[in-house]
């Protein structure tokens, strides 16, 4: 598909992959690939070019989220691949990796292909499927991973469910080495988490709610680090939430074990006190933890133990959330608040702007071996333009996701996504009110 050559001129380009932070122009060729990044490139533009003036704005590689749940096939009332893609680009994301706990589960090449096709129909961002580890997420038998990888799956995960059978996890890690992809793990010993619905601690005691102790995550992290050491496979800890888990990942990395981790924004911003008076928008798995755990997660992001921020975007509409806390569905949406929350920490001095960008671009991309998250010449032009002077006001009714389950409603976050470019085409632009999402035709996959 051939478009017009495009130049983004005069913006502050921040590319962690290249270690670059400075005023520069970005040239995109007619195939939607990055041709060149450098100063004073505007001279080559003629009348046939599209010129996007980025003066005063930041130009980043398109953001990458390696953990989302788009509920298609099966639970389209919560979110579809299309509505999820809208939410993604409105949040500045051009690539997302989508978990397999759909209905039917993504445990066959056919479902993987369906998800890829839907993503191309939406044509808004790159939706990379993640293959289930076990058939039906039952945790009993390996799924046909090879088929799914062929159809485009980029990682393996039973996320949503923990893999309770250590032997299955061992074999899964070994098997993953054929394809060189990580196994992303939802760490929760379901015997310990029992019927718990929030972090076990004084808040749970006061609210009379059954709790999930830190140990439910820690014992599984310990187990899977040892299994990664044994097998040489790459284990990736999804949505890490406890101080103990962060510590063990740090120690495992020091030992040379192939273990990586991601953290969600809600786990570095909130604590279990956010549950307040049974607010189900503060209910997710793993749960919000103590202040010590939140600070340890932040520290892990700062010192590189945790290589990526990933939202675990989990849409649930009111009917699944407006019920008794113990019965409410787990999860919150996150694509449209991730950048703002990460920037709020930059403002608070937790980490630098370069770190913030890295954790949402090159960090997750390298972790999963993707070619995204960079402005390297020859790569697809996935670019996010940020207006540093704007603010992001989180309004539940204005979210692009089909569901509005967020604990950040009413929050005012620094900076704003000004424009999202996917494969050289603008798919989202801020228009002063709510933004506009483009609906162009299909794109290439990578």
């Amino acid at each position, binding site marked *: 598909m051939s478009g017009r050559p495009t130049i983004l001129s005069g913006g502050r380009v921040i590319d962690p992959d290249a270690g670059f932070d400075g005023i520069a122009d970005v040239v995109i060729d007619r195939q939607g690939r990055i041709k060149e990044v450098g100063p004073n490139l505007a001279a080559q533009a003629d009348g046939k070019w599209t010129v996007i003036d980025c003066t005063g704005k930041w130009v980043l590689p398109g953001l990458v989220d390696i953990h989302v749940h788009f509920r298609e096939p099966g639970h389209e009332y919560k979110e579809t691949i299309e509505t999820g893609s809208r939410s993604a680009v409105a949040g500045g994301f051009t690539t997302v990796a989508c978990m397999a706990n759909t209905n039917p589960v993504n445990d066959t090449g056919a479902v993987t292909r369906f998800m890829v096709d839907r993503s191309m129909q939406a044509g808004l961002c790159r939706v990379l499927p993640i293959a289930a580890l076990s058939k039906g997420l039952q945790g009993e038998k390996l799924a046909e991973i090879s088929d799914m990888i062929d159809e485009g799956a980029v990682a393996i995960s039973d996320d949503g469910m923990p893999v309770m059978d250590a032997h299955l996890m061992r074999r899964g890690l070994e098997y993953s080495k054929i394809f060189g992809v990580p196994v992303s793990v939802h760490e929760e010993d379901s015997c310990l988490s*029992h*019927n718990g619905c929030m972090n*076990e*601690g*004084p*808040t*749970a*005691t*006061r*609210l*009379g*709610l*059954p*709790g999930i102790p830190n140990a439910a995550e820690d014992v599984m992290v310990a187990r899977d680090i040892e299994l990664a050491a044994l097998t040489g496979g790459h284990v990736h800890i999804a949505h890490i939430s406890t101080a103990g888990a962060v510590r063990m990942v740090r120690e495992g990395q020091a030992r040379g074990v192939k273990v990586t981790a991601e953290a969600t924004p809600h786990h570095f911003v909130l604590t279990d006190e956010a549950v307040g*008076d*049974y607010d189900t928008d503060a209910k997710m798995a793993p749960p919000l933890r103590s202040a010590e755990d939140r600070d340890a997660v932040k520290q892990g992001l700062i010192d590189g133990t945790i290589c990526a921020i990933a939202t675990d975007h989990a849409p649930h509409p009111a009917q699944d959330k*407006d*019920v*008794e*806390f*113990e*019965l409410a569905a787990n999860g919150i949406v996150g694509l449209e608040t991730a950048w703002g929350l990460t920037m709020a920490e930059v403002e608070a001095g937790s980490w630098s702007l370069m770190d913030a960008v890295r954790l949402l671009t090159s960090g997750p991309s390298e972790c999963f071996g993707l070619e995204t998250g960079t402005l390297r010449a020859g790569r697809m032009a996935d670019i996010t333009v940020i207006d540093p002077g704007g603010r992001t006001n989180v309004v539940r009714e204005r979210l692009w996701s089909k569901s509005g389950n967020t604990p950040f409603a009413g929050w005012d976050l620094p900076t704003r996504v000004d424009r999202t470019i996917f494969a050289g085409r603008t798919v989202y632009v801020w228009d002063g009110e709510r933004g506009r999402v483009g609906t162009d035709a299909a794109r290439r996959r990578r």
Partner: protein
Amino acid sequence: MSAATDEHFRRKDLLGLRFLSAGEITHILDVAEQFRELNLRTIKKVPTLRGKSVVHLFLEPSTRTRTSFDIAAKRMSADTFSISGSASSTTKGETLLDTAKNLAAMHPDIIVVRHKRAGGALMLANELPDTCILNAGDGRCEHPTQGLLDMLTIRRSLGGFTGRVVTIIGDITHSRVARSNIWGLLKVGATVRVCGPPTLIPMGLEEAGVEVHHQLEDAVRGADVLMALRIQQERIPRGGHFFPTLREYSRLYGLNRDKLRRWARKDVVIMHPGPVNRGVELEPEVIDGDWSVILDQVENGVAVRMACMYLVLGGERAARQEGRG
């Protein structure tokens, strides 16, 4: 009495003792004390709540608490209606919110609600701003009228709370009665101890100022009140592994005459929210003995519930400025 503090209970709902101040709790106890007398008259009826409707929404089975609330309401001339768990539409898949909205459309004045899940009463209160909600127990979170009637019983037996030691024995983790008592007693300045197997003591109590014991003798010595909780088979999830058998639990934590004689104060007061598992938490001679005020608790229960209904409906109406007469 209430002269010590200016604060009165003026809320429209009673959802939990953790929300109330010491002054509010004392006010309710003082009013309940007055209502006790009503229950001793020959004609146990006053027209105070005439024309008011009270709905008992019991989504978890209960005979005693519901009957106690019902007697309280009827003695004040209210009309009462009962909706119980098996008959309610929640078993037909209707959500709590829909049940609430349906009820609201019938304009009840008070809903007394018992729910299996924590937060149930709060949910109703938020959803129905024009109805008074009395929490009759929400999951393991709170059972405020039970806490209040226990506190009234303690106050009447001991004369006050300051400097007194109250020990709660049993399954604290799953107990809303324990929680309401703990929050209420801490607020009014009593010393609170809990005693039970470590498997049944939840996190965070020590930080809240409660003494935690696992040896019964330590918890009993010096205590003015021993409150035994029922081992609730129905509330303990399958495969809980909290203790091996009732027999062993009773050996370690049950109260009998011998243990009381050896460890307890001579004037110790024994309480239990009922119904008692005879032989498990309390031996028969303790239930029926002189230490026990269990029946006083029941008597005080009606008075406390009358006071609560009276106060939530009255709020601060018409009030002080109105002249006499």
